């Protein structure tokens, strides 16, 4: 069965975007279906926390002058390898400092709990309730073809390390780990001829295939016990989602052509960049309204290929995890062994600032990409809330307090360009604030529960 996204659902002018450094080309008209009420959510996960002392800005306005060491590049950044230079984004970002995630993630290095506000029940790595993106996907999807997209540049399929998106009852959301695969799903077929004389016949045929498997589901379901019926109910739900993707009912009078297919393979960075570019296109074409992107598992990502820091401070080929541990841990950059203690500490601290800045630059790239897509009422960033998150707060100590949280964009009238102190407020409070921002009721949310944070 050829599964194509009908050209009519997509926007004109997206073609060749993938070959361009940024998405400036997409200053294009939007599908008429998209109104000012469209709201989007994107979660950007990067592992190993940060150094909260050098990340957290003081409460109040963010300005180019008062950005902390780790957030400095929210003031703009130069081109770097595959990543183009970007403008300042601090005015579109609100830092939320002091969030306490330790009641939710009761073990260290659990990316799977990063978007959960609920402590595990069956175990400590499976969210017992839908993660924040899933909560929102259920409510924001409207008629978009894809309820949500879960993307990850890590090849790990471990439930705790390679997944950050979970539906109800701990159901792992299927993750796309290969940008080429994402491209094929979203855009392949867009270049197919629209003059296929059998198009209508083919559509009926493909519908008939799905009708036939639904009939098989009904027959099987009738034979099964209750527990098994609950398992196969998921199948029916997935068929419905697939049908929605194929039918793609988003009305539009415009069309867009497929971008160039991304290359396969690559490291965390190139995959993540391809994912960012594709997810922005998917948003621009209103194929989906909720996306999660996991940049890496806790162990994988390193900075080889980049020249970051000089002399002893250079990051070299050390992994982000090793750098995050600074000194005295078995997982440390051992090239600092034997140095004067104070000097070693200074260098280790500087390296964590350097990796944190890198992380922020990648987040800022996403923000700029969203900002560069014009909509009838502004930009994609205006209708989005984009969240930066990690599995730990202080990467060195594994503390899940003082989590690095950045919220960007203006969905629901969100106010940016500031830092909100939320010392010791639990993750449930943060999520309650976000849920309310999207217009849904959450007077109290999570386990441990929290109430919406004042002023957020």
């Amino acid at each position: 069965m050829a599964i194509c996204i009908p050209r009519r659902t997509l926007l004109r002018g997206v073609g060749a975007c993938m070959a361009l450094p940024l998405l400036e080309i997409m200053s294009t008209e939007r599908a008429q279906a998209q109104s000012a009420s469209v709201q989007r959510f994107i979660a950007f996960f990067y592992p190993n926390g940060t150094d909260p002392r050098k990340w957290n800005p003081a409460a109040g306005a963010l300005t180019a002058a008062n950005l902390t060491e780790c957030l400095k590049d929210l003031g703009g950044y130069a081109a770097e390898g595959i990543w183009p230079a970007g403008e300042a984004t601090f005015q579109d970002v609100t830092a939320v400092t002091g969030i306490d995630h330790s009641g939710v993630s009761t073990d260290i290095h659990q990316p799977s709990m990063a978007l959960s506000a609920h402590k595990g029940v069956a175990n400590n790595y499976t969210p017992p309730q839908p993660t924040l993106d899933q909560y929102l996907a259920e409510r924001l999807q409207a008629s978009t073809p894809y309820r949500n997209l879960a993307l990850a540049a890590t090849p790990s399929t471990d439930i705790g390390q390679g997944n950050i998106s979970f539906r109800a009852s701990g159901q792992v959301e299927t993750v796309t780990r290969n940008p080429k695969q994402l491209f094929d799903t979203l855009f392949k077929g867009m270049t197919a001829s629209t003059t296929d004389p059998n198009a209508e016949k083919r559509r009926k045929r493909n519908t008939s295939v799905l009708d036939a498997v639904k009939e098989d589901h009904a027959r099987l379901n009738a034979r099964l016990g209750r527990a098994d019926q609950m398992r196969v109910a998921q199948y029916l739900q997935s068929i419905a989602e697939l049908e929605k993707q194929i039918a793609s009912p988003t009305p539009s009078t415009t069309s867009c052509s497929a971008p160039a297919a991304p290359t396969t393979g690559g490291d965390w960075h190139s995959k993540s960049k391809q994912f960012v570019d594709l997810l922005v296109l998917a948003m621009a074409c209103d194929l989906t309204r909720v996306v999660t992107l996991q940049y890496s598992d806790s162990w994988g990502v390193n900075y080889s290929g980049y020249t970051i820091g000089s002399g002893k401070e250079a990051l070299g080929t050390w992994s982000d995890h090793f750098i995050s541990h600074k000194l005295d841990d078995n997982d440390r950059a051992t090239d600092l062994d034997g140095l004067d203690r104070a000097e070693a500490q200074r260098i280790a601290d500087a390296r964590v600032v350097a990796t944190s800045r890198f992380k922020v630059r990648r987040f800022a790239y996403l923000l700029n990409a969203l900002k560069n897509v014009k909509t009838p009422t502004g930009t994609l960033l205006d209708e989005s809330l984009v969240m930066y998150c990690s599995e730990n707060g202080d990467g060195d100590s594994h503390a899940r307090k003082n989590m690095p949280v950045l919220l960007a964009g203006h969905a629901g009238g969100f106010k940016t360009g500031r830092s909100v102190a939320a010392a010791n407020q639990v993750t449930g409070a943060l999520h309650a604030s976000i849920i309310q921002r999207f217009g849904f009721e959450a007077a109290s949310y999570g386990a441990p529960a929290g109430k919406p944070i004042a002023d957020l």
Partner: protein
Amino acid sequence: MSSRRSLSVRCSFGALLIVLSAGCSSATQSNPSVSSGGGSAQAGGPSNNPASAGSGSAPDATCDSATPDVSSNALRRLSALEYQLTLQDLFQLAAPPSLEGLPADTEKDGFKVFAEVQTVSASHLRGYLSKAQELGAALLTDSARRKQVLGCEPTAADCLKGFVTRFGRLAYRRALSTEEVDALVTRAERDAIDTNDRFQFAIEVLLTAPDFLYRAEVGATPEGLSKLSRSELAAKLSFAVWGRAPSAELLDQAEQGTLDTEKGLADAAERLLADPRAQGFYSGFFRQWLGYDAVRAPTSTVKGWNDALLPALQAETDAVVKDFAWGGLNFLDALTANRTHVSKELATFYGFPAPAADGTVTIPSSHVRANTGLLTHGSLLGAKSDGDLIALRGDWLRETFLCQHMQVPASVADQLGELLVGLTRVQIVKERNSRGECKGCHAVIDPIGVGLAQFDRAGRYDETIDITEYGIAPALPDAPNPPFSSVAELASKLRALPQVSACLTTRAFLYVNGREPTSSDRCTTQAAEQSFSAQASSFPSLLRGLLSAPSFRLRRSE
């Protein structure tokens, strides 16, 4: 890298990573091999799966019943591997087809077979449809293979009906009803684009239908305990040994009642076990159980390393495991083996003499790896390369060979940052072995880890690594005489522990059933363990024990 559940230890903080509660230390000190705590990692500390502690336990009289207790099974979706192997058979392909475009299975505790975490999402369905389309199209343009698989010319009368009947039976692992066949044929004839597309249409339906994707086991009644139907039993047997749907021959035998008797089932199992396809399917088991599927190139510079060693390391363990599992040997001897299979480059990396033309090499008795079997394979040591190696390897050995899960209690995990500020690496190890809330569990993992600490992250032996600075003597706390002075001694002491057989049994049970055994499955695990020990620890005998247990014919749904 390893992705075991006890992640705490792999994350470095080196720390009091396995800092455990008083309850943990108590359980550990009393008898770490027997616990009624279940497999949950929630409570903290080590716990055994209750069904894994069969070692030394008295036979259970209730297990003599023809319908012993069994736990309920989650309805299983075909694993990616089962799907792939089944497609190979259905389309009569020389090699398994590519899985590109299909989501990978979710991994838990290093295994990809836990039914409860596998889903069928829209992405899966998209992948299944695409794969059916791709393989169907290739089939229809390959005249020789088309004739074999279709059994007739596409244009011949009733060819479609015959194809749906035969192909559908293999796909669904049961005969389709007349109504099912007629409905699909009618639909294909009505809605397909052309003659060939009728077959394509049928293939897409059959290979995306829940009857194909789920391994339904219903038996006579959908609720409670029930005996599997004949075809369900054939499917269960084939998936358990070959990881693929049953052949037409096996389905024929089952439907004729051949598997109804103990001997009939045992004979069929024997035929499957003797086929190389069993070894192929269980190579996946060993990679997941021992964790070496996860080995990656080291992220930091290692003397003598080059990336060509990576496949060589895995190939070494594949070969050794295959020898001991299928070569008529005592499988436990793989733990103390003194013979291995290496490439020239790997021999150099290890410091071995040049291997024979077939890759075999006998390790000189003076070599640090002599008589250490699997324990010093670089694929196993290197697969746990990112974390505090002492805690990590101690924990890995307990989890892999003794089936003990370790977990940091949340109350302690939250204090780690404060507890460890300013301590050096050595101080951290000493601290966690002296603090009351920590030492209970670190006492059972760190002495093992220290004994392996002179192997670096890539599994290379480095005699310059000083293990005396920790002040911990190498020991296997579970052994009657715990201290060891060489890894060979550790291997020997480990091999002698009865818990190893019990643990291997629960892992094989997991691979066959898609879930861990519970106390309700004790009859099954006991039968398998007894079969294993009665036949000089032959691996096929362990499987025979699982396949011949009365519970193999049963399923519980609730």
